[in-house]
């Protein structure tokens, strides 16, 4: 990927993210805060963005959304379910969901 392609791809990803975030916030604000893992203030800002503003924010060389699990080894381990059988995939994923749902400090 050359530099131009990288910038294009990042802009596309940012734009998709912003559009999805905005429609989630508009359809159910409280559930959107859970789904997106963002603060109420960020949600208010995103909800108000015009298409032109979105285009402006989306361009740049960095992504706007980031990983929810940061460097939490426990959650990563459960999501990847190393060396366990496939039957227990759903169980490990469920365990990860419980841990992720419990992490609301980051949202504030």
């Amino acid at each position, binding site marked *: 990927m050359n530099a131009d392609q990288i910038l294009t791809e990042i802009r596309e990803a940012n734009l998709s993210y912003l559009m999805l975030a905005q429609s989630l916030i508009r359809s*159910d*604000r*409280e*559930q959107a*805060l*859970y*789904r997106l893992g963002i*603060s*109420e203030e960020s949600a208010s800002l995103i909800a108000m963005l015009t298409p032109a503003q979105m285009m402006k924010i989306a361009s740049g060389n960095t992504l706007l959304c980031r990983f929810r699990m940061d460097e939490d080894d*426990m959650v990563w381990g459960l999501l990847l379910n190393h060396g*366990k*059988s496939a*039957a*227990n995939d*759903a*169980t490990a*994923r*469920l*365990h990860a*969901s*419980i*841990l992720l*749902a*419990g992490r*609301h400090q980051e*949202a*504030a």
Partner: protein
Amino acid sequence: MRSKSILTEAKQISRAVALIGLGARLQVLESETDLSYERLLRLYKEVAGKSPSKGQLPFSTDWFMTWQPNIHASLFLNIHEYLNKSSALDEIDAVIKGYQLYLEETSAQGLEPLLSVTRAWRLVKFVDNGMLTMTKCSKCGGQFVTHPHEIARHYECALCNPPARAGKGKAAGAIRMH
């Protein structure tokens, strides 16, 4: 007699409709809205297309302590707490929205949603009046539904330390540990 606001009533009806749609028992609606029993009954039949089931609500905390239900209840309660901490919601709205997200999670993992909305509502009440609480697992750090006064330092959750025979069943939609 106090004058009834039409807007308040509309809000209550839409809550009742959402709860009926999720499969709530009539007692939940009676407790969470000011609508009369007769109106709720009519609404129930209109929305669900059948009469509500009769009989008492489950009233014991024991169910939440059994293996699979405890995991389901913990998932719901973590989502519920998240919603409450990130925005100011009326209590019943937090139950409705949290339960919808719980249903999405279980269906995404191909699991049977063992926790009914009526049980989810009871769970929140049990936590409010201190009969149940959440304790942090000493292994994974997740919060799980427990009786109060669980010794946190030694507590291990139902997923880190499942009982010997847990998760060996072959029923579709059950939590498995192999």
